[in-house]
């Protein structure tokens, strides 16, 4: 592995991230300057209008950063476990599973707290993930990428019918769901950040701890077993943290697609397959991509805004298709 290249990637990534964070805070319907941002940090009780704007925007940007990093690492883990370049929480239908459980929770069990959203979303996501994986493993050749993708898409379609069945007769749930379903980091507060941070940190730390084992599994599962690694346990923990990361973000922000697909794939293609670096870089670039899509959504959707989930799909959809076109037919 070329360590200079990796260093460069870190430096570029962090600079992009800082820039994206800065733009995300300053740009909007009312743009503010650098001095206001600094003021906001120095004097938190300021009554100046611009400073207040900055303070209102910071949670959104920080949440975007966390969400981007989490989704991207989650996608990376799913790709590594299934040895599949096109795995992603949205492609595998995991997001729809989380949606269904949240809708059920809101409608029938009258769930209100955001913590309980995270709980049910996690349960829904993990059940769906297992189901899709099992479904794709059926038949000749095990879970090939194509079978995973179709199983995910089919499951997603079936689950969204259940969502419609529950949502349609309840206009109040429909209104909430309509906004939640798209995936947006707008309207998040510091409380939300405090709530998700522990889960996200657990997910990221677990995946970093697993990075060596994931490298070994990448060689081949037989080699890994021969080297004394418990392959199934490693995969199970990696799957757990992958689902935890995406379920937590999905519970609060709604399904944001394609971040977990494109970022790890591109980094793997350009740089290296060392999981420690992959995880860190995916986190950094994933956060940047999400923040940039959010800003782009605000620019393109003026005077309102295009939700982040739509922007990532608009950027990610074509990238997904390009990846498929580049892949060899045999490897699909």
């Amino acid at each position: 592995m070329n360590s200079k290249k990796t260093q460069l990637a870190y430096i570029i990534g962090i600079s992009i991230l800082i820039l994206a964070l800065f733009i995300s805070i300053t740009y909007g319907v009312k743009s503010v300057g650098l001095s206001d941002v600094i003021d906001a940090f120095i004097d938190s009780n300021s009554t100046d209008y611009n400073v207040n704007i900055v303070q209102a925007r910071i949670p959104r940007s920080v949440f975007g950063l966390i969400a981007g990093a989490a989704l991207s690492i989650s996608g990376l883990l799913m790709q590594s476990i299934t040895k599949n370049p096109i795995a992603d929480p949205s492609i595998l239908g995991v997001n729809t599973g989380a949606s269904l459980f949240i809708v059920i929770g809101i409608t029938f069990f009258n769930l209100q707290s955001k913590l309980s959203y995270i709980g049910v979303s996690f349960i829904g996501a993990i059940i769906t993930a297992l189901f899709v994986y099992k479904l794709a493993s059926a038949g000749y050749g095990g879970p090939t990428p194509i079978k995973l993708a179709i199983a995910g898409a089919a499951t997603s379609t079936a689950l969204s019918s259940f969502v419609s069945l529950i949502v349609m007769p309840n206009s109040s749930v429909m209104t909430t769901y309509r906004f939640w379903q798209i995936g947006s980091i707008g309207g998040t507060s510091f409380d939300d950040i405090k709530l998700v941070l522990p889960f996200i940190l657990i997910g990221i730390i677990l995946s970093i701890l697993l990075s060596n084992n994931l490298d070994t599994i990448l060689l081949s599962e037989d080699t890994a077993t021969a080297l004394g690694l418990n392959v199934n346990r490693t995969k199970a923990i990696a799957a757990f943290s992958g689902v935890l990361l995406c379920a937590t973000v999905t519970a609060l922000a709604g399904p944001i697609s394609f971040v977990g697909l494109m970022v790890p794939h591109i980094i793997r293609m350009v740089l290296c397959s060392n999981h420690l670096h992959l995880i860190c870089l995916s986190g950094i670039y994933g956060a940047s991509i999400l923040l940039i899509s959010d800003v782009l959504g605000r620019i393109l959707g003026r005077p309102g805004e295009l939700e982040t989930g739509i922007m990532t799909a608009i950027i990610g959809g074509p990238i997904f298709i390009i990846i498929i076109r580049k892949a060899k037919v045999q490897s699909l």
Partner: protein
Amino acid sequence: MKNNNLFEGVKSRRKKYILSLVVLWLIVLILFCLNMTIGEKNYSPLQVINTLTGHSSEGAYLINKLRLPRSLAAVFSGIAFGVAGNVFQTLLRNPLASPDIIGVSSGSTAAAVYCILFLNMNRSLVSVVAVIAGVLTSVLIYKIAYIHSFSANRLILVGIGTQALFTAFISWMIMSASEYDVPTAMRWMNGNLNGIVTDSLPLLIVVVISCLLAIICLRHQMVSLPLGDSYATILGIHVNLVRTVLIVLSVILIAFATAITGPIASIAFLSGPIAKRICGHNQANILSSALVGAILVLAGDFVGQHLLYTRFPVGVITGLLGGPYLIYVLVKQNKGGQL
């Protein structure tokens, strides 16, 4: 003697196929009658016939203007989705690869939702736009997936990507629309039979019947294609031509049906496999999947209209069948069958 036995087998399978076709026909007929007679106000079958033939004017509006178009639309859209789904599954050699999953209908839906929410178009104009958009989307998917040669897998994946893209657009349109219009669009997205207008029906019926006949003419070629391109070529089939014609016909079917009823979920997905289960897979199962499609739509509409606590569009009801089917595939697989 041996030869004789061989043909005995073929004959008995043919007999079985024809028998199951007749049974399916009967079920379609019964469901059609149920949908015509039962509703807010029930009529006897005799009354319905009298009204239809013009001998009596009792309930003429209800029967001629509401129930007849609705039931006809159910039958013909069911046939269209069922046949097209079966063709796609056969050509792509994957029982899960139906047109609604690989994005063929997403273009029609997106265009239609746009026309309803932003241009306030009337229904028949929406249908025209939806057909054009559906065909264009399919051509786009096919073109993008075609590099040097045709690859079923690439087509499926490109389709899934396109589907995701259009879904994002649809969500965005629903977000930015006024709250008043949203239920209409939401219902349309799932596929429903409310407000079918009589003047859009003749076109649907003509298109469905002619495409169906054309696909039936290609049935022998269609059975050979899944053997693999080289085998099919050896059997004397112009593979690319046949495949293109079949895909074009199915896309037209899907686009027209989607334009009138919306993408009724799971029909395309389920009809083929169910037809295969009933009739075996010695033939192309075109007619049987058409009938199964019609049965599913008629039954789904009946359940959605009369048997639940509120009225649901047919697409929600049929979509629910998708889940159990996937579980069935899974269970069957664990028992050692082939997907």
